[in-house]
């Protein structure tokens, strides 16, 4: 920086408020600052989800600890995928005296719209160690193809 405009800080700057507002909004989207543990008033009832697009298929992964297969429902209507279910508390809940309770119980639902290239007719799902993995193959026309071109 060779030459900078001199700015008198004592002068009133009408744009200053707008600039700090922009910084504040940017800070809101700074995900790294968010605490990793739920706060006092945070209710994180939506389970975490991953959607990965591979060469041959789409993989949807969802964290559902403590949820049985029978308490869960995965549906696809046109190209909208819905994962919903209920996390039940233990049957002897009434006899338990809690010292700390961070895990939530109750119903949850996550809905995502799938891309057109996903073949919803060949959907496969697996629940293992509290992680639900849904695999959707790509439609034939969406898969990457190698076309050899003859050069004459």
């Amino acid at each position: 920086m060779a030459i900078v405009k001199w700015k008198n800080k004592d002068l009133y700057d009408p744009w200053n408020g707008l600039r700090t507002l922009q910084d504040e909004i940017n800070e809101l989207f700074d995900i790294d600052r968010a605490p990793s543990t739920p706060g006092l008033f945070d209710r994180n009832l939506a389970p975490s989800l991953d959607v990965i697009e591979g060469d041959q298929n789409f993989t949807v992964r969802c964290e559902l600890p403590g949820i049985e297969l029978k308490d869960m429902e995965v549906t696809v209507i046109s190209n909208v995928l819905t994962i919903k279910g209920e996390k039940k508390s233990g049957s002897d809940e009434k006899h338990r005296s809690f010292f700390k309770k961070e895990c939530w119980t109750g119903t949850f639902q996550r809905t995502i719209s799938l891309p057109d290239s996903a073949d919803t007719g060949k959907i496969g799902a697996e629940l293992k160690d509290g992680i639900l993995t849904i695999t959707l193959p790509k439609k034939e026309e969406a898969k990457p193809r190698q076309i050899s071109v003859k050069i004459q």
Partner: protein
Amino acid sequence: MSEKEINEQRYFAARYNIYKTGYKMFLDLEMPGVSKEDLNIQVEGNHLMVEGVKSTGQLAGKYRIHEMKEGVYRNIFTLDDTIDKDKIEGAVKNGIVNISLDIRESEKPRKIEIVSK
């Protein structure tokens, strides 16, 4: 473990419940993606460490939504003298780690025999 190793490894705390049923304490930790083989429960002095390695690694492809964290769950709890450290059992099911801790016999209420003289 050296400081460098700690910095390289990413740990995060799992959410947990602590509750008591009768004269037994229970600890439930939510560790999705942790199987029996990846779980390590240790008692050292009066510290109970629960460590679970997530088996779900990075998948090849583009992440359209990426909310699941990768790394190692690690929670450390302090046990007081009322816990019988020799009777700690752990189980894992559907991504929930359940640890049962017994309360020492000496801490339980006991009836005192009255001797008539």
